[in-house]
């Protein structure tokens, strides 16, 4: 009798457990179902897929950009596409500049148009908005379009082609100054110093505050020329019969570039000394860089020595330096702030 009671109770308990599990599973299914449906929809052609491709694509590139700019937030925000019909309409389109743009899927299957459209709108808002009073419009636009060029190039050939044809080419034909600037920025970007040096320095410049717009505009323009001369080293040397200056110590921007070049001697002391002198003269940062297998080894040794001497190593970056005939891996150590 006792045994039967125990058995019945065990059976009841097991039924109860089964019921509880069933209730939990049912609740979880109902809770998760809308999310699952939403997720599945993002893979079906249409609204969800458009949103996913654009958000995911741009956010991924933003992340790389920030990483490659030594972790500084050159692009202040991530991006989120909000469909007008999903949000309360009364709160939007009420302020000056509020905008709703059309995105398509049917007429834009590879999403190159929508991607570029959203990217340009995003960059307008997110690329160093606080820099606008201090750097000229043309430089701000130049940097923005160079970022867009890099992002679209990495994204997809179609997107890149569309960006060049529809957005960049018309602007280039509008003004010679902009065209010249874009050529300089392109070369600086190809040599790997657009994000890691130029944008990084611009970022810190704006962080420092207390700036004079006119002095700064001129200084930024000269800083771009300084980086361009280094990127265009061979041509510069042909024209001037000397190396381009590697030191830029001005009112706001104070940096040293240490280019570790082909090994002719084991002695790296002149590279180390260049870094030491720069900091003693007030440099805020030194970029120790080299490309090619042998130079990378020497660059690492130089960086180690500088670190041993107590200089603050902020970041180690690897990049690909693009030359007309080849692409060479490079390395850059950032010292200073």
């Amino acid at each position, binding site marked *: 009798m006792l045994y039967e009671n125990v058995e019945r109770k065990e059976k009841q308990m097991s039924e109860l457990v089964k019921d509880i599990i069933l209730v939990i599973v049912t609740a979880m299914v109902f809770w998760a179902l809308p999310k699952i449906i939403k997720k599945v929809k993002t893979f079906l052609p249409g609204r969800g897929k458009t949103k996913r491709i654009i958000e995911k694509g741009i956010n991924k590139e933003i992340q790389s950009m920030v990483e490659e700019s030594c972790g500084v937030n050159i692009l202040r925000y*991530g991006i989120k596409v909000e*469909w007008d019909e999903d949000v309360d309409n009364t709160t939007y389109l009420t302020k000056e500049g509020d905008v709703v*743009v059309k995105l398509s899927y049917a007429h834009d299957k590879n999403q190159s148009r929508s991607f570029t459209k959203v990217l340009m709108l995003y960059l307008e808002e997110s690329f160093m908005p606080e820099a606008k009073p201090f750097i000229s419009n043309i430089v701000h636009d130049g940097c923005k379009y160079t970022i867009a060029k890099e992002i679209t190039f990495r994204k997809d050939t179609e997107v890149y082609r569309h960006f060049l044809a529809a957005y960049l080419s018309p602007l280039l034909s509008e003004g010679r100054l902009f065209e010249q600037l874009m050529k300089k920025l392109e070369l600086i970007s190809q040599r790997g110093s657009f994000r890691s040096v130029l944008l990084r320095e611009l970022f810190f410049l704006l962080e420092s505050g207390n700036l004079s717009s006119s002095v700064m505009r001129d200084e930024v323009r000269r800083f771009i020329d300084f980086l361009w001369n280094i990127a265009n080293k061979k041509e510069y040397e042909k024209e001037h019969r000397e190396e381009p200056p590697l030191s830029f110590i001005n009112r706001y921007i104070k940096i040293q570039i240490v280019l570790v070049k082909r090994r002719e001697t084991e002695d790296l002391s002149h590279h180390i000394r260049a870094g030491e002198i720069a900091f003693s003269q007030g440099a805020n940062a030194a970029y120790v860089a080299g490309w090619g297998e042998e130079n990378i080894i020497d660059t690492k040794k130089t960086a180690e020595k500088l670190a041993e001497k107590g200089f603050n190593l902020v970041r180690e970056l690897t990049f690909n330096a693009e030359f007309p005939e080849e692409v060479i891996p490079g390395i850059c150590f950032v010292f200073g702030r």
Partner: protein
Amino acid sequence: MKRQEKLALRAVYEKDIEKLLESLGILDDVKNGQQNCYFCNEKVFLENFGGIIRIGGNLEIFCEKIECYMKMLKERKSR
């Protein structure tokens, strides 16, 4: 690294344009070709609708030409 806040960009999906315009009370105007692009002044219909922006206190429609989209970006930048 922790990602910073996200910038929300408002968009309308091509199939939802009618709903948007209806909510703004201008659907019939657009269907009847009574709305012009703010930037190029060409007539805007549902087929070439590019977007809508608030400028000078008014809601202005623009067409889907990239020149007009770029003008819209410039307009926002200047504000």
